[in-house]
């Protein structure tokens, strides 16, 4: 027996390893990335396969293939990633699986680092797949093991949907050391039922609907749903992490209530809910995001001709946007119980004005130079800069302000193409990273070439997937499990797509990179500039720069144009702090040549 401090994502990975997972696939995305990182680190020792797939659709399809051959397989992603994987997901529900297939989709209410606040439980309902919602890292680990069993029992993929506060929370978790029991592989058996045809879909839809009731029955007995009865008239139903907030809020307020913890939001088990209806005079449903449990509870009450009042999102007692926490839930419960909401005891005096601290590109980030170069090269034109998902979305911040649009992974190129159809005389410049290019940029590039769009595509190749924690991708000789034999050359790939103007330049070399930018912008048809320079958080620091105040004109160009966190206004003029990475970009834009390498006279 050992005790480990594990993050929710690590706990999920350990749970999968304990369940004997054989194939695990993912594309990184906060807050889900550490699931595959942990699995990849365990893979060799435990004898399973783990990969970073090029996108979530690929991840789910690879996992599905493995499951067809009888293996236990897992695909992990964030909620937005499920949108990319929705095509295989919907069909897979009809086809079904053989080996247990667990799809872990991390939701981000808040949202802390996402484009949407969408609720994966709704997606599960839409796809008619059972979904589990853990309250804690320890429960997430147990749910993964249960989910594999359930998947094999129902022959359906099962979704585990943790939220940020489970994924990125740590908890002490007890382990009994021991290897997962070896699972003999049955292999893929040829059968017409693997090939989706309209006639098969029609038949399987009936089956899929029947499985909903089967899943509901299994959930009646699941230990993840727990009813604790109190003599009070109040009944609270809480789902996922909200359960923690409800428990703690009750403790803080001293109020009593019967509490039904729901860990299986869809299909909702009926037994415990009906039992709560018998005990409580009024019911409050507390869950984050959409009223998934609440709507099912209301339907159940109506079917059973129950008139107990039900509060939650539908009557706006619980907010439908944003993340819940103990304070918000306490106020909700107070109000629901007819109490004055407890104000903060001895509220502190209002704080003085605090500085805004938006995230910025790191000191030495090569993207800063790339944006600067293209802004400079396009000066005087009305070029539109379309952005994409990654660190470089931060190019939107002042002073660079070089991102005019950002929609979703891979959309920079296609949005630029669309804009170009309407404004053919304007230049559109699409920026995206190397990992994003492989994820879903390539399809857009082929489309742009095929349809002769007059756009420039800038691939910001920093040789990693930086924002999510430096995962490898096909452009590197590195996989999730270690060194790889081959890699895909981005420039060669772009040329093979039929792009005539392709240049690879170093963004730290402003002169050469600017020349490539100008040429690319002036060429008809699609042109591609690959700005290649390793991510500053992985590369070795160069020689620190300092400012020679004797030469400095105090023009503030270094501060006002670049926004580098290493350059600040000092008392006597600009200063470069110890954060300096030594990229030398500021020295190249200084009109007085006042920025020198440290130690230089």
């Amino acid at each position, binding site marked *: 027996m050992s005790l480990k401090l594990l993050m929710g994502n690590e706990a999920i990975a350990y749970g999968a390893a304990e369940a004997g997972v054989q194939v695990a696939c993912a594309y990184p995305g906060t807050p889900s990335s550490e699931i595959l990182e942990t699995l990849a680190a365990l893979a060799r020792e435990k004898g399973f396969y783990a990969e970073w797939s090029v996108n979530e659709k690929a991840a789910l399809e690879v996992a599905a293939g493995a499951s067809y051959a009888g293996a236990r397989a897992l695909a992990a992603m964030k909620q937005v990633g499920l949108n990319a994987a929705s095509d295989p997901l919907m069909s897979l529900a009809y086809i079904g699986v053989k080996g247990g297939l667990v799809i872990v989709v991390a939701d981000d209410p808040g949202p802390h680092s996402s484009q949407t606040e969408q609720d994966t439980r709704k997606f599960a309902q839409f796809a008619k797949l059972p979904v589990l919602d853990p309250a804690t890292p320890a429960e997430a680990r147990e749910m993964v093991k249960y989910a594999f069993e359930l998947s094999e029992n129902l022959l359906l993929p099962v979704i585990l949907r943790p939220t940020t506060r489970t994924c990125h929370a740590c908890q002490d978790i007890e382990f009994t050391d021991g290897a997962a029991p070896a699972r003999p592989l049955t292999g893929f058996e040829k059968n017409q039922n693997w090939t989706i045809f309209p006639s098969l879909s029609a038949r399987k839809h009936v089956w899929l609907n029947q499985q909903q009731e089967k899943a509901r029955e299994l959930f009646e007995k699941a230990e993840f749903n727990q009813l604790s009865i109190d003599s009070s008239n109040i009944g609270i139903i809480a789902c996922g992490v909200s359960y923690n907030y409800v428990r703690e809020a009750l403790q803080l307020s001293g109020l009593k209530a019967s509490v039904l913890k729901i860990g299986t939001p869809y299909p909702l088990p009926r037994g415990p809910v009906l039992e709560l209806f018998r005990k409580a005079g009024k019911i409050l449903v507390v869950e984050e995001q959409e009223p998934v449990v609440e709507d099912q509870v209301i339907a159940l009450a109506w079917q059973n001709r129950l008139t107990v009042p039900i509060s939650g999102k539908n009557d706006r007692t619980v907010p439908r946007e944003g993340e819940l926490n103990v304070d918000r839930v*306490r106020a909700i419960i107070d109000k629901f119980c007819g109490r004055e909401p407890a104000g*903060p005891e001895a509220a502190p005096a209002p704080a003085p*004005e605090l500085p805004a601290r938006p*995230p910025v590109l790191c000191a030495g980030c090569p993207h800063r130079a790339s944006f600067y170069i293209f802004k400079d090269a396009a000066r005087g034109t009305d070029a539109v800069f379309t952005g994409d998902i990654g660190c470089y979305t931060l190019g939107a911040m002042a002073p660079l302000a070089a991102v005019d649009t950002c929609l979703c992974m891979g959309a920079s190129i296609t949005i630029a193409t669309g804009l170009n159809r309407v404004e053919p005389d304007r230049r559109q410049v699409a920026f995206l990273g190397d990992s994003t290019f492989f994820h879903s940029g390539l399809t857009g590039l082929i489309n742009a070439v095929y349809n002769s769009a007059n756009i420039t595509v800038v691939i910001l190749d920093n040789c990693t997937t930086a924002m999510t924690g430096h995962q490898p991708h096909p452009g590197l000789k590195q996989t999730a499990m270690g060194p790889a034999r081959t890699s895909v050359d981005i420039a060669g790939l772009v040329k093979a797509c039929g792009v005539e103007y392709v240049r690879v330049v170093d963004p730290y070399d402003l002169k050469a990179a600017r020349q490539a930018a100008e040429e690319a912008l002036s060429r008809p048809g699609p042109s591609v500039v690959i700005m290649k320079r390793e991510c500053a958080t992985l590369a070795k620091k160069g020689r620190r720069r300092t400012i020679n105040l004797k030469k400095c004109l105090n023009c503030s160009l270094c501060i006002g144009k670049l926004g580098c966190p290493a350059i600040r206004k000092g008392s006597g003029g600009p200063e470069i702090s*110890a954060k300096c990475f030594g990229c030398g970009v500021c020295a190249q834009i200084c009109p007085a040549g006042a920025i020198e390498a440290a130690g230089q006279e």
Partner: protein
Amino acid sequence: MKLDIVISGVGGQGSVLASRALARAAMESGLAVRTSEVIGMAQREGPVTSHIRMGDRLYGAIIPDRAADFLLGLELAETVRGLIKLKPGGTVIASLSAIVPVSVELGISKYDKDTLIQYLIEQNEKVFFLDLEELSRQSGHPRTGNAVMLGALSAFPGLPFKPEQLLRSLLSYLPQSLAEINRRAFEIGRRAVEVTLNDIN
């Protein structure tokens, strides 16, 4: 036993690592633990708040407002931002060092150090200031502020673990090559607070 600690700082200062060290030290004392932080867009330079909860019975990982026993501020303005989490009568250990964001250099927002220090003093009975930048420099490495801070915390009475336990837990997260420097940083932080605590008593 129940202890809630908040660490506020800026991405890149090692607050997440410090939260893990605290949690593991508490675990060794037989307490249940939970930690929570949000990472993502704030990897570098953005505000980071870590929550560490330890006790016999725990629910969620987020500390309610006005409930934390300690607020460890690795950066001055972020300490003020995190003050909403501290319970009345709780203890603040605040770094005097400012990490001035780019928004201030560009003239978009303001950073008034003296006002912030004054506010912290006025709002709290128990506030201890550390010159984190100087103290970590003394340890031999400018990026040991988190170790200095943990050392400072370890000087307070009533913690569920001994200073040696916390130090051992911290070192378990670091490569061997950084052990000596961090051990020194921890001691420097500890001594800095011990001197002040003795003056009070």
